[in-house]
């Protein structure tokens, strides 16, 4: 139960993934999607364990006041804020419209809503004397009518098209339509437009989503981009240290890097014109032939190693991932 069953699961999953490559027949044509969906769900659930581990580690650091515990507070706070904002605020792009804001009302009035008989604008749902109303009043009206105005929206249902008469079976590529009555609020929400007029729930969602967007856009992206850009410095320091002609291998490493570096920038073209060599073309040739040869050898070797490891896993020989040899 503790080892046999997991090995069996591995074997079955692996075999299915291999044979489905050769079997176009259903259900094998979609079973790979199923399996991948399943394990992605399992892996996604597992992040709970990860977060738990992180919280556990850092909360202990804080409670024992270990060195640098203050930074653990930063970590835990940013983790909690970001995950709450992400889960409850949602990560899809949304439009929040404040009903008390005149410019946003204008924006909303121009919004088209898809209904079964074509498109309608929000403006068409206002009462006849709406033109006399101020924008704030229009907003108040729309907001008060949010739940009472219903619109018909298209809702696609997956239908297996069996005709009532079993002898006449249609298979029609187009899907059938269902008309669904929705309140305006729901209809707009489908288009990721969220209207609010100070309600607590909306405000919460607004700030959570806004907070998520803000931290994603300014904090997360900046940190990620900067961390990535550190490589520019590290590449230079690694090059200075390692590219020395100590041995023949190191010299080849150095020369190839040198040539390609020159060939990759404008400077190479200029230098080439001076000494009468087409340096970018030489670089291209090096990349095309000797470099490709090395790459191919590595790629083929990797694939063979990977295939044999995969095979050992699928046949149940390799059990190290279960902690067994």
């Amino acid at each position, binding site marked *: 139960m503790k080892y046999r069953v997991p090995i069996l699961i591995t074997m079955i999953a692996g075999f299915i993934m291999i044979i489905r490559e050769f*079997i176009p027949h259903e259900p094998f044509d979609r079973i790979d999607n199923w399996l991948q969906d399943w394990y992605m769900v399992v892996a996604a659930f597992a992040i709970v364990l990860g977060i738990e581990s992180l919280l556990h580690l850092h909360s202990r650091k804080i409670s024992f006041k270990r060195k640098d515990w203050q930074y653990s507070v930063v970590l835990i706070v940013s983790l909690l804020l970001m995950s709450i904002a992400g889960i409850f605020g949602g990560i899809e792009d949304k439009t929040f419209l404040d009903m008390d804001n005149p410019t946003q009302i204008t924006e909303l009035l121009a919004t088209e809503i898809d209904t079964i008989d074509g498109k309608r604008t929000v403006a068409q749902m206002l009462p006849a004397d709406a033109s006399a109303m101020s924008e704030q009043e229009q907003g108040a009206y729309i907001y008060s009518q949010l739940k009472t105005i219903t619109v018909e929206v298209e809702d696609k249902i997956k239908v297996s098209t069996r005709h009532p008469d079993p002898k006449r079976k249609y298979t029609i590529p187009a899907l059938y339509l269902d008309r669904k009555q929705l309140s305006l609020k729901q209809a707009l929400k489908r288009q990721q437009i969220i209207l609010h007029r100070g309600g607590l729930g909306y405000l919460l969602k607004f700030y959570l989503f806004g907070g998520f967007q803000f931290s994603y856009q300014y904090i997360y992206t900046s940190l990620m981009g900067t961390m990535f850009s550190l490589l520019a410095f590290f590449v230079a320091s690694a090059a200075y240290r390692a590219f020395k002609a100590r041995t023949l291998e190191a010299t080849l490493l150095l020369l190839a890097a040198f040539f390609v570096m020159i060939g990759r920038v404008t400077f190479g073209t200029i230098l080439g014109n001076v000494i009468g060599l087409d340096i970018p073309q030489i670089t291209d040739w090096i990349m095309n032939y000797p470099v490709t040869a090395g790459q191919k050898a590595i790629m083929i070797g990797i694939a063979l190693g990977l295939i044999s490891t995969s095979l050992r896993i699928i046949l149940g020989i*390799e059990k190290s991932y279960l902690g067994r040899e």
Partner: protein
Amino acid sequence: MDMRRSLLCLVLFLFLLVPLWAQEEAVQGDEQTQEQVQEETQAEADSPPAPPAMVAKKPVLSPLKIAVNDSPDDNGKALIVEWDHSPDAIKHRTVKTVDVQQEVVNSQTVNTVSWTTDSLTKNFRILGYEIMRQAPGEGEYNKIATAFADQTSYVDADIDPGESAAYSYKVVAHITRIALYEILRSENTQGPFISVGMNPMKKTRFTDSGVEPGHPFYYKVIAIDKDGERSDESLAPAKGMSHAQWFSMNKLNIFIILGLLSFFIIYSIERAKKDPDLYIRPIAGLAAVEEAIGRSTEMGKPTLFISGIMDMDDVQTIAGITILGQVAKMCAEYDTPILVPTCRSVVMTTAQEVVREAYLKAGRPDAFKQDNVWYMTDDQFGFAAGVDGLILRERPSAVFLLGRFYAESLILAETGNYVGAIQIAGTAEPSQLPFFVTACDYTLLGEELFAASAYLSRDPYEVGSLKGQDWGKLTIMLLLCVLLVLGILSFWPDSFAFSLDVIRFLGNLFKI
């Protein structure tokens, strides 16, 4: 026990081959039925069409010959409908009002042919013109040029100036009534037929991907003219049936190569069990593992192990985890703490299990600290930032980077180098190897990562599978040697014409 495993493979192999034959029979049967239907359609077409009703405009004619074929290797999800053009599709008509004028352009005498096409454009669309000429002394009209649909004149410069008046011209218009073809489908011969698609006039092939395998479908193709008038729908339909295949024939070569490689590996494993003392060449990085951990112990510093940044579905992560088991065991024996921050939660749970087992095997389960194996973040650079901070603060004296790495490889390796740790790295991600090679003390290049656990454990199964890999490499190398010889022979194409054919043949074997 393990002989049985290989037998199982063999049986599965054979099991897959069985439907292969069955399928071929099915395809043959299918072709017969299609031919029959085509004959029926043909018979219908040969009989004279009903006399047209007394209307000003003649009805549009449908395409007569329709063929429906199964499209291969798609699980019977599509049928290909092909047809010959409707008799109305392309017609030739001689333009009546043709005017020829003799002119002198740039001191050269030319004939300018111009025409008007009022009567033609009413029901038809013009595709283009053909200009024909009868020169003096020639008995018949010869085609001399083609013109676009919007052209109304042509300048003929290839004439004898003295006899320019003796040339006569004819202009033939290529016209069509058809604007579209519509493809109709039904599940029985009587209908109702529903539209499954439209084709522009020039395309006479349509792939219908809305069918189900194993059911007969009947197709009609009707022509529609530019006024929207549809051709006769009463012609007999063409029948077609798609089949869901149980084996993709176009992947047979992949299947055979996979079988061959699997055979090499499984056979070598079986051999290794009988003769466990197989030679493995030294791998520098792995010989240094013990030294690195020993140094950590001397300096009283921890060892850091990172198994890449991908999840457990990645085979490289598994290779890294396998080595982690052996490294952790050594650490337990040397009584050196091992730190394993992970980038994925599932990797964390697995690594905890593996390290715990390793401590258990080393006889020191009490020394295992679960908190030393922890999750950091799923984010590539967040992880790099965290590990960098960790390296700077903990100053490990041995760093292992084994698994799949991307751009963060150099960030980690340079920081490790900065604190003076012995670094043993390995990845099968080709783009990151250069960075490990320049920044680390030892690097396991590509395949060596997968060989590492065999090298460390000397387990006959693993060593055997290494041998199987070598067989695979040898086969490829021999193939390339043959290619090399053939390539050199092809320098003399006159004497060794066969060499190019052989290369082409080999290339086709590897075509996907």
